[in-house]
């Protein structure tokens, strides 16, 4: 028969050997569970084939001043626009303090190529494709792009000017590989 002292041995400081075993076992199981959850969460991220679409080449030689084209990168629309001098002047005339997401045209284009405005064609509100890249489409009150779904209007530098969208149309990472070819991504 176990004596009183044996049963309560080591309890004076409130810690039993059993407590250590409990914590160690639960922690070990917890680490195991986390290790299983990780791949289950990670499988939801874009797969390799989706990421592989991350670079696109565009030939811009046939885009006339004032014209815009729609192409796609990462399955998302890209607007490439050849701005005319008037549109560039309009974009530059806007004081930064008027803008919700202050950015100059220079910050949104490459040096010496400020007539080439290349942006994602994804409204920063809820992801619709704004109008304005196609021939005769409504460009909205600021002459850039217009999203009729929820009423967001962008100016000639594709900056948000009116409506619920919080940010300017995003400029994707791109480079001019030659005077007529742009590589996006």
């Amino acid at each position, binding site marked *: 028969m176990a004596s009183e002292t044996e049963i309560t041995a080591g309890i004076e400081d409130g810690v039993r050997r059993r407590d250590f075993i409990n914590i160690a076992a639960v922690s070990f199981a917890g680490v195991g569970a986390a290790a299983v959850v990780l791949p289950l969460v990670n499988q*939801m*991220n*874009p*797969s390799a084939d*989706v990421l592989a679409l991350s670079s696109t080449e565009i030939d811009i030689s046939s885009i006339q001043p004032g014209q815009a084209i*729609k192409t*796609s990168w*990462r*399955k*998302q*629309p890209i607007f490439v626009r050849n701005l005319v001098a008037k549109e560039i002047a309009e974009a530059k005339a806007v004081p930064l303090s008027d803008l*919700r997401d202050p950015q100059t045209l220079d910050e949104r284009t490459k040096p010496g190529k400020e007539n080439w405005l290349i942006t994602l*064609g*994804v409204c*920063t*509100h*809820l*992801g*619709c*494709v*704004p109008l304005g890249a196609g021939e005769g489409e409504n460009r909205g009150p600021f002459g850039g792009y217009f*999203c*009729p*779904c*929820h*009423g967001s209007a962008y100016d000639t530098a594709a900056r948000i000017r009116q*409506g*619920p*969208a*919080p940010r300017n149309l995003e400029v994707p990472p791109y480079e001019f590989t030659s005077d007529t070819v742009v590589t996006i991504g």
Partner: protein
Amino acid sequence: MSFPWAKNYEPQVPLMKWLDEKLPLPRLVYNAIGAGYPVPRNLNYFWNFGVLAGVALVIQIITGIVLAMHYAANADIAFNSVEHIMRDVNAGWFIRYAHMNGASMFFIVVYLHIFRGLYYGSYKAPREMVWLLGVVIFLLMMATGFMGYVLPWGQMSFWGAQVITGFFSAIPVVGDPIRIWLLGGFAPDDATLNRFFSLHYLLPFVIAGVIILHIWALHIPGSSNPTGIEVKDEQDTVPFHPYYTAKDGFGVGVFLLVFVALTFFSPNMLGHADNYIPANSLSTPAHIVPEWYFLPFYAILKAFTFNFLWIDAKLWGVIAMFSSIAVLFFLPWLDSSPVKSSSYRPLNRIFFWILVLDVLLLGWCGMSPAEQPWVILSQLGAIYYFAHFLIILPIISRIERPLPMPNSITEAVLAKHADAPSAATA
């Protein structure tokens, strides 16, 4: 569970006795919808809608399982596989239309079920848990309905997926990575379609599970009733079977009449023509609208057109839309009136109907373009919606003087029929 006078299950034949000892499933059914569950004797037809929602879910699960046998969750062929179901599969058109319109029927009966709960104070103690589980079911239904709508991969499907997942990009800092994680890409594509299909198949069974909890939580205090007075003695109740199985059976008949009328005569009435255009990721439909049952919430989302305080309009819209449902979780504590039924709450009755009109107005705004006067109307409608729950309801539950209440359910029933000529004397 339930009341002391509930009948006990007594198996008659040897087989049932044997089964009762091994797996008392018949006993469970008897106690759930048989004479083992006494129910207030005065339930009106608004108490049919819980059963009708269950019927609607069963129809959705059966038609859905069949459709999944023919549907292909691949962005290249999903649209065509739906057309294949419509044209080539035997009776495929019928099963798909039944599934499509079954979703609408499900939401119609659930909305009526919710408004029944609001009018008769079914959310009040001792049934708060029933209400909370009900709101969980509603959220699961919304998720399931949305993901199901994406599967045909038409224009509305695709852009619905784009816009709804866009909500998550409103979350500060981590929003965009979360959205990409949810979509499995940078825009809705194969990965999105496949996971939506998988979840669309799974969630109805989760809903069925929560419904079991919903009914379990209901059967502890027992069903509410139109007077809002709790059951006092045996006189106030009747056994569920045959009384309410018969009444519900009639309701199911009417429900099916409406359902087949919609399915056979106007199957596309509640859909959108744009969803018969294959998904195109480079062109948004001029006017994106969700299914009719999301329109009031969509209007609340669209009501925020300007930045306010330090939060931008997009995040406000998303917060407001989610809050418009989350506020329902707090309803049992926002309404502190001791009286449940609005039949005895003259002030609450008026504001209940104003809320119904407000939700209908928001629905109208939700399907209208983002132009005036719809923008201002949805803003006023959204303000009123929140004011109803957060300001009006707490105030009226304090200042209102309820009408005199009957002493018992039986007294209320007898008083109602006192001046009617009785069949015995005629």
